C-alpha cells in the first residue's frame, strides 16, 4: 500500500532524507523514529504529497503520487490522507464542528453533519461541537485535531510528533487514540516521533 524506493530529498546542498526501500501494508501501524533533522517530517510530507522528493519512487495506494500534479494532487490528498500536526493548528475562530466541516469542504466531500457528530462522538468530544478551540483543554484540542484528520475516512493517517508537548499519561493516551481511530476506519497509521516514551507502542518501526 505504501511503497518507497530509492527516495532522496535535499534542501539545497544538504541531504534531508535518504530511504532506499520501505514497504507498508494496508492497516499497519508504524512509528518513524529518529532524531530531529533526520527527515521524519520530510518523509511524512512526501507521503502526503506536500513535498516533491529530489529523487526516487513513491507509490501510495497503487498511485504514483509523483505523477500527480497541482490540483489533482491536492484533491488526492484531501480524499486519502489525514494529517495530525504537532501544533494541532485548529482554525481558532471556527467552532469545533466547523473545523471538521472545513475538512469536508476542502476535500470536496459532502458536508455531513451526522458524520461530524459521529466522529466527534468516537473521540469523546461530541459535547464540544459548538465551542471554539480556545475554550477547550489541550487534550480536547488534540482529540478535535484527530477528529479533523479522520472525518473524511482517510486510508492513510499521518501524525507528526503528536506527543511532543504532552505528559507521560497524555502521550501514551494520544498514541492509543490514534491507533484506535486508525483501526476504526481501517486506515494505515504512520507516526513520526523522537519521543522515547512511545517507542515501544507499535511493532513496526522505521529508523531514519
Amino acid at each position: 500500500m505504501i511503497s518507497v524506493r530509492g527516495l532522496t530529498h535535499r534542501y539545497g546542498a544538504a541531504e534531508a532524507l535518504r530511504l532506499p526501500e520501505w514497504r507498508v501494508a494496508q492497516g499497519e501501524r508504524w512509528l518513524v523514529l529518529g532524531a530531529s533533522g533526520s527527515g521524519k517530517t520530510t518523509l511524512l510530507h512526501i507521503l502526503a504529497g506536500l513535498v516533491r522528493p529530489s529523487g526516487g519512487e513513491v507509490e501510495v495506494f497503487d498511485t504514483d503520487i509523483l505523477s500527480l500534479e497541482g490540483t489533482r494532487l491536492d484533491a488526492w490528498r484531501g480524499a486519502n490522507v489525514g494529517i495530525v500536526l504537532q501544533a494541532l493548528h485548529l482554525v481558532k475562530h471556527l467552532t469545533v464542528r466547523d473545523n471538521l466541516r472545513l475538512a469536508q469542504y476542502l476535500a470536496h466531500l459532502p458536508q455531513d453533519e451526522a458524520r461530524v457528530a459521529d466522529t466527534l462522538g468516537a473521540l469523546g468530544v461530541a459535547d464540544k461541537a459548538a465551542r471554539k478551540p480556545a475554550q477547550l483543554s489541550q487534550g480536547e484540542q488534540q482529540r478535535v485535531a484527530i477528529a479533523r484528520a479522520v472525518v473524511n475516512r482517510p486510508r492513510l493517517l499521518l501524525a507528526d510528533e503528536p506527543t511532543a508537548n504532552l505528559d507521560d499519561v497524555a502521550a501514551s493516551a494520544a498514541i492509543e487514540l490514534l491507533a484506535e481511530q486508525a483501526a476504526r476506519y481501517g486506515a494505515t497509521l504512520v507516526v513520526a516521533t523522537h519521543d522515547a516514551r512511545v517507542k515501544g507502542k507499535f511493532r513496526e518501526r522505521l529508523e531514519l
Partner: protein
Amino acid sequence: MNLASLSVSYVRARPLQTVLSLLLLALGVATVVVLLLVIGQLEERMQRDARGVDLVVGAKGSPMQLILAGIYHADAPTGNIPFSAVGLLEKNRMVKRVMPLALGDSWRGYRIVGARKDYLDHHGAEFVAGKIFEKNMEVVLGAEVAARTGTGVGATFTGAHGISGEGAEHADAPFKVVGVLAKTNSVLDRLVLTSIGSVWHVHEEHKGEDHDEEDENEEGREVTVLLVEFASPLAAATLSRSINAQSGLQAASPAYETARLFRMIGVGVEALRGFGAILILAAGLSVFIALYSALEERRYDLAVMRTLGASPRRLFGLLMTEGLVLALSGALIGLALGHGLASALGAWLEHEQYPGVTGLQYRPEELWVLGVALVVSLAAALLPAWRAYRTDVSQTLAKG
C-alpha cells in the same frame, strides 16, 4: 461551509480592521452617490423647468440673473421692458411662441407671476379645484403654495411688493383664489399665477388711479421677461444678436447660462468627487493592510487548509473573496448611506423651497461607483491573495 461563509468568518475575526475598511469604503461611496443624486436631479429639474424655452428676453443686466428670475423664479428680475416687445417678437417669423411674464410681487415668499394661459399650458398645468383666472385680481395657486399655506379656492389675500415677502403690502388690492393646480413637478408648483393685467392693476392702484376695466390699454405697459421659443434652431444666433443690439433689451440663452452655472459650482462638485475617490482609495489601502498583515498570523491556517486538500487556487480565491465581501458590504452600506443623505438633503432643500431632490431615485451611474469600489478592493486583495497562493506548506509546517 463554503468559500463565502469561510471568508466572512475571517473578515469577522478581525472586527476593528473590518469596521475601518467598511467605514472608509461606505463614506467614499456615499459621498459620490450623494453628488450623483443631488447634482443629477438638480440638473434634470432645471432642464425640465427650462424645457421649450430657447431664449429669455428682459431688461439689460446679468444674463444669468435674467435666467434665474425668468425661468426658475430664484432671483430678482433685472428690470422691466416695454410690452411692445411682445408684439415685435411675435411678428418675427423665426419665433414660434412668446410667453410674457410680469413679476415683482410675492405672497408669503411665493412669487406672484402675471402670465397668460399659455404659460400654464406650457408647464402642463391641470386644475384640482376651480378654474383659471379670468378677471383681474383672480389668482391660481401652484400645488405647493396651496398645500403649504393651506389656502384654497375662495380665499383672498394681498400681495407684498418685492420678492422677499417683507415689502409693503398692496392692502388696497386683494387677490381672490379661483383655482388650485395639480402638482406638475415644475417651477409652477411654487408660483401664484394671475393675469398680466392683475399685476398692472395692483401697481396702478398704487398710483392712486382707478382702473377696473379688464381690457386695459397695453400702450406704455411693461412686462418683466419674455420666454421665447424658436421656430427653427437657426434662430439662435441671429435672433439673440439682434435683440441684444437693441437698447434696453437683453436676450439670454437658458442652455448656455445653466451650463455656465453648473461649470461654476462644478469646481466644488469636482473637489467633493475627488474627496470621495480618495476615501475609496484609502478603503482599498485598508483592505490591503487588513489582509496583508493578517497573512503572517494566518499562514498556519493556510498551510493546514492545504493539508486538508485545498489547492493554492482555493487559498487565492479565499483571500479574493474576503476582499469581495468587504467591497460588497462597504459599497452597499455606502449606497444606503448615500441615498439616506440625499433624502435628508432633499427634505432640507424642500424646506428651503427648492424641492425635487429625493434619495428614492436610482441612477445608472451608481453602478459605476459600485464597480470602482469593487475593482479597488479586489486590486487591494490581489497581492495578499498571491502570497496565500504561494504558501509553502511543508516549510511552514516544519517551522511549527
